[in-house]
């Protein structure tokens, strides 16, 4: 897989090379392309990808090396001592143009209807390195325009520039060799083996790595022009792995999630299941507080919750329980555990969440909660489990329950007199609740998740909360104030800072810098 460099002269050996007349020093084993990238020299490429092996098939990254008769693919050639590399000679620039001319020879005139337009490497490289009028007016080789490759992917064979990145994603990341090249020359095309489908759990990564619009996601295809989207960094809520992602949204609607490189967590990838977690953000949302099933104003609903909780606490604190969910952020969890201990004065704090699911050894974790580690740290050693919750509900020691977020284990409900639910979605718990409060979701709030490695990773609000829903920490603070406390949290960062000071093992966490969404149109054609 990626990153396995040949280390001919030992791991620490350095080589001295000259690039475009300037001397540099690099560790041995680095390729010329990577060396150029490190010193900010631009060399275009199609088939090379930092997370994949380098077959040097596109010939776009050719550079000159003094003493070599022919141009050399820089993505494939390791730096060597005393090497002299030239990336900007007339000859290199000419070769670059010629390679682009070849690639464009049979490329369809699809930009206006192509999903990749605006973030296309071919567009970028042509505009950066060529910008000459066409010299060819012959007819182009036609291939299939709509090939249904699998559950998530549609292929346009005409647009394919034969870089084989997608083949390598299947082979090296998903470890399921689904895709192959067939035929030769200008008839060469990408396809699946006869009778096979592209149905591995990482298939949508082929769309990201495709430098052009050959592979398109059925989910995103024709739904939005890419350059209209705004990108916000975040973390996938699908499982405990916590793949780093970018939320691509426009007008408060999320259109897609794409992986954000993080060598320590997900490298350059994420699973198909995680990519589609955004769908739930826009489905069946609870958009207003409900008191006894009827919509109510926030102030009235909070006053009712405060009344119910105070009554339950004063009558019998041992029958009052609080359920935390590993689906919610550290800030929400911290605020509610503080509320439970300081104002509800109960030690019956349970930790619940989503059911376990499938897993693999690549990225997918069996724990489908994004913040189990964080919830366990914040809940502390005394926090009770979902099994305890089920047992206590069955034997009827709980009379009043405050539930934060989604939890499977809250049943049976028969013995409860009071049930207050903070939920992002409609569901049986909301229907049964005395008061239900709408909770903002991961893509709508600032906050942090702690993944299975213990990394505290930052969420940024990409869209406005649905309806009247609010972040959990804010609801906790307003509830505490309604119960007579003097909480002053004004934003998630304040909650985070306090949690970092008080929760063991969170002390090294960093809130990070504020990130505002970037419109892809002006993100300099990231390709």
């Amino acid at each position, binding site marked *: 897989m990626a990153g396995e460099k040949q280390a001919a002269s030992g791991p620490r050996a350095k080589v001295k090379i000259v690039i475009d007349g300037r001397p540099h020093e690099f560790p041995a084993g680095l390729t010329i392309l990577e060396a150029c990238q490190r010193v900010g020299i631009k060399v275009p490429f199609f088939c090379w990808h930092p997370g994949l092996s380098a077959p040097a098939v596109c010939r776009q990254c050719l550079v000159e090396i003094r003493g070599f008769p022919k141009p050399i693919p820089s993505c494939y050639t390791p730096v060597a001592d005393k090497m002299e590399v030239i990336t900007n000679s007339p000859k290199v620039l000419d070769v670059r143009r010629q390679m682009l001319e070849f690639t*464009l020879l049979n*490329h*369809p*005139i699809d*930009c*206006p209807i192509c999903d990749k*337009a*605006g973030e296309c490497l*071919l*567009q*970028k490289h*042509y*505009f*950066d390195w*060529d*910008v*000459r*009028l*066409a010299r060819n*007016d012959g007819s182009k080789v036609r291939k299939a325009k709509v090939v249904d490759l699998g559950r998530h992917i549609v292929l346009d064979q005409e647009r394919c520039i034969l870089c084989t990145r997608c083949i390598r994603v299947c082979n090296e990341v998903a470890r399921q060799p689904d895709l192959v090249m067939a035929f030769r020359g200008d008839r060469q095309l990408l396809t699946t083996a006869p009778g096979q489908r592209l149905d591995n759990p990482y298939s949508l990564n082929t769309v990201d790595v495709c430098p052009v619009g050959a592979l398109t996601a059925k989910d995103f295809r024709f739904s939005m022009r890419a*350059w209209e989207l705004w990108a916000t960094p975040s973390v996938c809520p699908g499982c405990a792995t916590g793949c780093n992602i970018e939320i691509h949204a426009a007008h408060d609607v999320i259109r897609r999630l794409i992986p954000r490189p993080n060598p320590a967590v997900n490298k350059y990838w994420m699973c198909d299941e995680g990519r589609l977690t955004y769908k739930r953000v826009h489905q069946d949302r609870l958009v207003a507080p409900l008191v006894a099933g009827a919509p109510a104003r926030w102030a009235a609903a909070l006053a009712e919750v405060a009344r119910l909780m105070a009554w339950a606490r004063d009558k019998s604190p041992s029958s009052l329980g609080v359920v935390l969910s590993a689906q919610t952020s550290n800030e929400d969890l911290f605020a509610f555990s503080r509320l439970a201990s300081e104002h509800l004065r109960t030690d019956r704090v349970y930790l619940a969440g989503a059911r376990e699911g499938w897993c693999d050894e690549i990225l997918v974790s069996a724990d489908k909660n994004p913040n189990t580690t964080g919830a366990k740290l914040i809940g502390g050693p005394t926090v009770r489990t979902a099994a305890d919750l089920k047992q206590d509900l069955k034997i009827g020691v709980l009379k009043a329950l405050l539930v934060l977020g989604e939890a499977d284990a809250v049943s049976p409900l028969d013995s409860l007199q009071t049930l207050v639910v903070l939920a992002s979605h409609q569901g049986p718990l909301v229907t049964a609740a005395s008061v239900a409060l709408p909770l903002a979701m991961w893509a709508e709030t600032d906050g942090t998740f702690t993944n299975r490695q213990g990394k505290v990773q930052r969420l940024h609000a990409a869209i406005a909360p649905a309806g009247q829903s609010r972040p959990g920490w804010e609801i906790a603070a307003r509830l505490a104030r309604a119960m007579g406390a003097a909480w002053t949290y004004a934003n998630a960062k304040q909650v985070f800072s306090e949690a970092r000071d008080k929760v063991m093992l969170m002390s090294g966490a960093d809130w990070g810098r504020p990130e505002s969404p970037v419109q892809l*149109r*002006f993100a*300099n*054609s990231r390709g």
Partner: protein
Amino acid sequence: MNDHAPSPTSRRVVMGFGDAANLPEDDELPTESMPLNMGPSHPAMHGTVRMVLEVEGEKVRTVDVQIGFLHRCFEKEAENATWTQIFPYTDRLNYVSPMLCNVGYALAVEKLLDIDDKIPERAQFIRVIVGEISRITDHLTCLAASAMELAAFTVFFYLMKAREWLWELLEEVSGARLTHSYVRIGGVVADLTDDFCPKLRDILGRCRAAIADVDKMLTSNRIFRDRMDGIGIITRDDAIGWGLTGPVGRSAGLAYDVRKDHPYLVYDRFDFDVPVGSVGDNFDRYAVRLEEMRQSMRILEQAMDRLPAGPILLDDARVALPPKREVYNTIESMIAHFKLIMDGIVVPPGEIYSFTEGGNGELGFYIVSDGTGRPWKCRVRPPCFANTAVLNKILPGLFIADIVPTFGMINMIGGECDR
């Protein structure tokens, strides 16, 4: 003002009883200063501007000129538009001479792109031609409106008619009467129409006649001179100190014209003079503008005589859109077109201050690029921002009625001043 009116000292209102003649001089009815708002919506305030006056009778004691009513976030909008999309915004800076703003902006971006010496010669001549037409329409508007505010309605009609001939000609070239968006980075968007030059020569002849008529009607007109002579005097030192440029600066004796002092485009090839005033009053500002129109006509005639043939847009798909036929039929030009429209021209990182002679003076663009398809910062130095500021200095001491011609001759254009 009127010779027959009694002088302020010859007629007095007195307090108390008794023989007025026996009362001491200083028993005059005491006056109190009064605040008075002129604008922001006032018939004589062409352009939305507000003046908060403190008046003593008819005399202006203090003035506070308040601008900003036409603020449209030009500079902020420019940060969110591609380099090409900014042209329509520049049309709306000085909206009586949009071509000059178009040209000024284009030159700034071209310098940043380092293509300013590669612009086709014909495009440069066309830019001069449409720019000088715009300068004439700018001055025509200024003089027409000011004359009308002094009740010379005929002058207004004569000059507006002339302006309309010119605007109709520009409409033929650009497709829009007022907001032309005609200039592009790398040249202009369309060539002149086939019969442009004969038409312009004909119009210039008629304009000359109209301007001569107005010259006859106003320059020796007693009423006009009484309202203009010696009113709102700006000294040469003040003009330098307040950063006054254009006709306002030149009327104060400051012989600064960007076209002469820092020639751009092909201005150094033309023979023209820069009129300069000697008194710096309203009449000088009127006279300088009248003469500048004549000089612009000289430039126009020379430019038409020497107009070279050739392309009107730089032949570089990194900057200028490729021909439509290529865009529809080849992937290469399709990509270039797409990138230019969607991402914008890629301007290398850097900063530039580029300035031209606008209708009201030095029109400057200070632009910072971060290497993307839109400016990181696009600051405008609007000439009439500085020119308007000097009103606070020259208006106190004048009569309320003097504000109207003085403000008119400063020629504040809200679109440009407030951006």
